[in-house]
């Protein structure tokens, strides 16, 4: 087909080029009618959803739609596709897939342990730094600052204990 077929606003029928009437309403809304029957009904203010032969009626009363819906659902089930991605080659993916759960758990635990040790290390370093700072402040300022120095350490320790 060379030219586009448009749809009738009233009945939902296809309008071939050279047929049909176009109506522009006062608010610049355009309506396309397939024939004078649709046009007449529109002007007489009949509702397409009440006329059995229109597409709107069929949609509302759900005729002929069940078959379409079933078809669409069938296509969407996909199989897990084995393909190599940039980050990991096919062999690595397959190896990971065939790993047993116990192996996976062991690997996970090892990783967690590493992370915990890392956190502990950074915490110790921070504590050490703070202790140095506190000792320096002690030398220069009065004793009143000591309790202030102790307080921020407290909540930090609690946070470290809670994480574990």
């Amino acid at each position, binding site marked *: 087909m060379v030219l586009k077929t448009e749809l009738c606003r009233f009945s939902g029928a296809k309008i071939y080029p*050279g047929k049909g*009437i176009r109506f*522009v309403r006062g608010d610049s809304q355009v309506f396309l009618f397939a024939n004078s029957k649709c046009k007449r009904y529109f002007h007489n203010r009949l509702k397409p959803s009440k006329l059995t032969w229109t597409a709107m009626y069929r949609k509302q009363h759900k005729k002929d739609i069940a078959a379409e819906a079933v078809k669409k659902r069938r296509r969407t089930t996909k199989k897990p596709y084995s393909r190599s991605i940039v980050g990991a080659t096919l062999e690595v993916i397959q190896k990971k897939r065939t790993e047993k759960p116990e192996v996976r758990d062991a690997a996970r635990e090892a990783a967690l342990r590493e992370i915990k040790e890392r956190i502990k290390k950074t915490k110790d370093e921070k504590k050490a730094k703070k202790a140095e700072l506190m000792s320096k402040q002690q030398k220069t300022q009065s004793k009143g600052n000591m309790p202030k120095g102790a307080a921020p350490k407290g909540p930090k320790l609690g946070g470290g204990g809670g994480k574990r």
Partner: protein
Amino acid sequence: THLNVADNSGARELMCIRVIGASNRRYAHIGDVIVAVIKEAVPNTPLERSEVIRAVIVRTCKELKRDNGMIIRYDDNAAVVIDQEGNPKGTRIFGAIARELRQLNFTKIVSLAPE
């Protein structure tokens, strides 16, 4: 006929007096220039009531037929006030305008139109 005015030139309603183009012309269609008198005008504008002006018809309730068979019908009759050369007097145009006007050298009107 009484026509609405589709621009902001100041007139609100026009009454058609004469169709320009032929001595015995009966009806004017979209794109025809008519002589009209202003029946109703917006206050404080350069155009006054009972002033005779020219206008070009842009919308008709009678269908407009196109070469490809398309028929277009509007909901009202409307015109745009123009001067002797064909330039619109107003600066804005309201409502849809038919494409036929472009072929008749009313390009200014067409360019101002929203649709």
